[in-house]
């Protein structure tokens, strides 16, 4: 088991390395010169060179990549002598646009993304799984049809569409909610909740739809399994049969799926955060892309990949714990 985890972590490292390398390559090859962008409207070649040196983008590709990588583990120093700026260990560089430490930028925004992700996850699990369960147990009834119509809606409606309609109806027209912003929970819990409820709902709608469909399919499959018949033949109460024998096998695959989806969201809900003006990692990514702020894009990409890859490992381990049949491959 420890050997296995070690192997998996090594795999994580390799994938992250590849992700960073690829991202680096693409930005290195495709992106315009950041120095020229920074230089602004009154620029001359000499200044561009100065800025390039300052940013360290005058070096060859591999050297830059190496600096970037070693910066993550050992920190790095920009510039020389008195003007040198040190960037401590998990160093992902400084934003080209704002000169802020990228790590600081991300850590400042991560709580928002986490809040969005956690709230949405709670909602979508609750709604998705219960809707799926009800429609599986009442398969063929209007309950089932209603839930599945709802699910189809969630799958077919783009989330920015839902987001805007929701905002228009609830905030602009009915004024039951204030305009969302990014408040602290401690300051004003009610406003905090009111601000996040829409992003949660919008995100949860899409995911809940998918989870409802999946849960329904899984539960239907499980209900048809022979072991369900065995359980009933034992004379167990029907609720126990459902809870113990039907639910666990149906939900195990969903748990693993959930791990991945959740991790994906931690990397930022790009569209939802943008629409609702939440200052999370997703919005940071969108903004940075708009400004071509490479260090930030790199960092967000890496971080998102990190979450997903780690979730992948966790999910696999979890699966092995949840499903006794699972064997870890050598």
């Amino acid at each position, binding site marked *: 088991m420890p050997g296995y985890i070690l192997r998996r972590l090594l795999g994580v490292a390799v994938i992250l390395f590849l992700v960073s390398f690829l991202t680096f390559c693409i930005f290195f090859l495709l992106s315009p010169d950041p120095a020229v962008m920074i230089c602004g409207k009154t620029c001359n070649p000499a200044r561009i060179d100065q800025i390039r040196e300052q940013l360290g983008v005058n070096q060859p590709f591999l050297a830059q990549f190496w600096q970037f990588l070693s910066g993550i583990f050992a920190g790095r120093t920009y510039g020389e002598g008195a003007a040198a700026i040190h960037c401590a260990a998990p160093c992902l560089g400084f934003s080209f646009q704002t000169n802020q430490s990228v790590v600081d930028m991300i850590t400042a925004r991560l709580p928002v993304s986490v809040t969005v992700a956690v709230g949405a996850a709670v909602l979508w699990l609750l709604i998705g799984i219960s809707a799926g369960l009800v429609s599986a147990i009442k398969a063929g009834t209007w309950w089932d049809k209603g839930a599945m119509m709802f699910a189809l809606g969630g799958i077919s409606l783009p989330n920015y569409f839902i987001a805007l309609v929701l905002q228009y109806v609830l905030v602009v027209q009915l004024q039951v909610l204030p305009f969302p912003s990014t408040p602290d929970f401690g300051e004003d819990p009610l406003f905090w909740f009111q601000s996040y409820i829409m992003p949660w709902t919008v995100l949860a709608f899409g995911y809940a739809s998918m989870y409802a469909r999946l849960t329904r399919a899984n539960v239907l499959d499980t209900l048809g*399994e*022979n*072991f369900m*018949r*065995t*359980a*009933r*033949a*034992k*004379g*167990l*109460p*029907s609720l*126990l049969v459902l809870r*113990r*024998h039907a639910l*666990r*096998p149906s939900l*195990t695959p969903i748990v693993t799926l959930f791990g991945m989806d959740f991790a994906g969201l931690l990397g930022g809900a790009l569209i939802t955060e943008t629409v609702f003006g939440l200052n999370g990692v997703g919005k940071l990514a969108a903004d940075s892309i708009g400004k071509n702020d490479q260090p930030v894009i790199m960092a967000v990409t890496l971080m998102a990949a990190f979450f997903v890859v780690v979730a992948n490992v966790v999910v696999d381990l979890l699966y092995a714990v*949840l*499903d*006794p*049949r699972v064997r870890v491959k050598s």
Partner: protein
Amino acid sequence: MNRTESKARDDGGALLEVRGLTVTFGTPRGDVDVVRDLSFTVDRRQTLGIVGESGSGKSMTSLAVMGLLPKGATASGSIRLDGVEILGKSDAALRKLRGNSMAMVFQDPLSSLNPYYTVGLQITEAYRAHHNVSRKAARAVAIEALDRVRIKDPHLRIDHYPHQFSGGMRQRIMIAIALCCEPDLVIADEPTTALDVTVQAQILELMADLQAETGTGMIFITHDLAVVSQVAQDVVVMNGGVQVEAGSTEQIFSAPQHDYTRALLAAIPRLDDDLEELKMVGDFRTGATR
């Protein structure tokens, strides 16, 4: 084992009495009777063998008795357990009987155990559903049950998951589940097909002992005629959903009346037989397709 005719036959106290049982499937192409007008009786301490080729409705009959017919199937006729009509009873009422008064060993041991739970839990939950005992006491019962079906090291194996057992062992665990509550009626649907001949012999013996101890009545379903000849007192022969012949085992094996029964008996390869052409069972399958 080979006791002569059971007496307690028509004293009205039959354990299970099935009369005119018909199982119907509603399919898009109309209703199909997979069991038609079947009648038989099982007494205490008695074993009724049901034989017949694959698809002849053996499993459906037993599921009808348990009230566990799959969706889309309906049963009609009469099924009396201990004199009480149970066909058409509510699921809640049947639940009280299942496991306790009647238990079933399902045909497919691989898929009939929940892969997510230890066999221990799956045995104890059956016991605890009907006995108000502590977890610990139930565990003791389960270990005992495992031991009885000849699983070695039951106190260790009780915490294993189904996939850690071989097919034959899983079949024995199914038997343990069915027997742990010492039900009045056990329906065993091909309980030994996955077993080696040697283990099969042991299990058959075990079931016979148990029957002697607790007076359980049993329905033993198989298509292995030799096995039936050893365990059953009475035999029902089924073909295409109908009973073609019924009677005491001796009667069926020594003087079969129906052509199908005869053909079936003739098709059995025998160790002591001459190397002659095996008799084929009529034209039941050839040519016709379904």
